[in-house]
């Protein structure tokens, strides 16, 4: 395959050699994605990767003007391909799960700290109970409903940011901002109680 500088890639993808340049780019992206997704995709890896690469190339051609030249062109293009692949993989993985499924009212995975670990002494268990109630109250009273929903979907439900965003009719950046504000609020609320996050973490660490 022909080696190209960044400007040669851009020229070729815009010019008469476009077909060859696209074919070369396809090979690069496919090789990278196959390697990075092989542990994640167990069936039809090659077919799925070819679909991702096809979508990525369309997006790359559409976004060529946004390439700032701060990295090699192929690095930037691979970044686009990774984003395309992960967006689709996450969509497939979570497609049948709603936020209501993920966060049913007081679902059963709660284990009171006192029962979770029979090891800690009475004082430690009492502290854990107090901190648990304090944080539950903080989430209920100091965060907005949207902040609380997003925080719980990610922290408790393990749902990726963009999938939570899709279900909350927003986008990944806006949801990140919402969560950033929520974390800042929680830090402030802790501080008002004279606590740091580290003190709470330590209270729950195994002895």
């Amino acid at each position, binding site marked *: 395959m022909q080696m190209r500088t960044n400007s040669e890639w851009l020229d070729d993808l815009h010019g008469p050699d476009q077909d060859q340049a696209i074919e070369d780019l396809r090979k690069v992206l496919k090789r990278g994605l196959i390697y990075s997704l092989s542990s994640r995709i167990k069936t039809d890896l090659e077919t799925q990767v070819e679909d991702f690469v096809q979508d990525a190339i369309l997006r790359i051609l559409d976004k060529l003007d946004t390439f700032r030249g701060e990295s090699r062109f192929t690095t930037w293009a691979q970044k686009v391909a*990774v984003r395309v692949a992960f967006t689709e993989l996450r969509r497939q993985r979570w497609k049948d799960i709603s936020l209501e499924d993920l966060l049913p009212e007081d679902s059963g995975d709660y284990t009171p700290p006192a029962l979770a670990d029979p090891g800690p002494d009475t004082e430690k268990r009492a502290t854990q109970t107090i901190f648990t109630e304090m944080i539950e109250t903080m989430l209920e009273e100091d965060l907005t409903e949207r902040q609380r929903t997003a925080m719980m979907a990610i922290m*408790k439900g393990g749902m*990726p940011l963009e999938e939570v965003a899709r279900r909350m009719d927003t986008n990944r950046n806006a949801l990140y901002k919402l969560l950033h504000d929520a974390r800042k609020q929680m830090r402030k609320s802790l501080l008002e109680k004279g606590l740091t996050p580290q003190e709470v973490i330590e209270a729950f660490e195994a002895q």
Partner: protein
Amino acid sequence: MKLSSEVIQKMMHSVKMTREHELDCGQCYDELDQFVELELSGKNAAEALPLVQEHLDICGACREEYQALLNALKAIME
């Protein structure tokens, strides 16, 4: 709402890492190719682009994509 010890610890770790100013996912994405290249060339990417490192420390989705990009580029370089 009932919280397990694990969720509380996870939440507190994210609160602990919270900075007044953080990059959002889009801003991190814009710099990710540069960050990964610094790393692959043996330079201290976290020192050169600390806000990107902080975002990756806190955002699981971006961290996952960063790791995949790093692996993909290693495959291309072979």
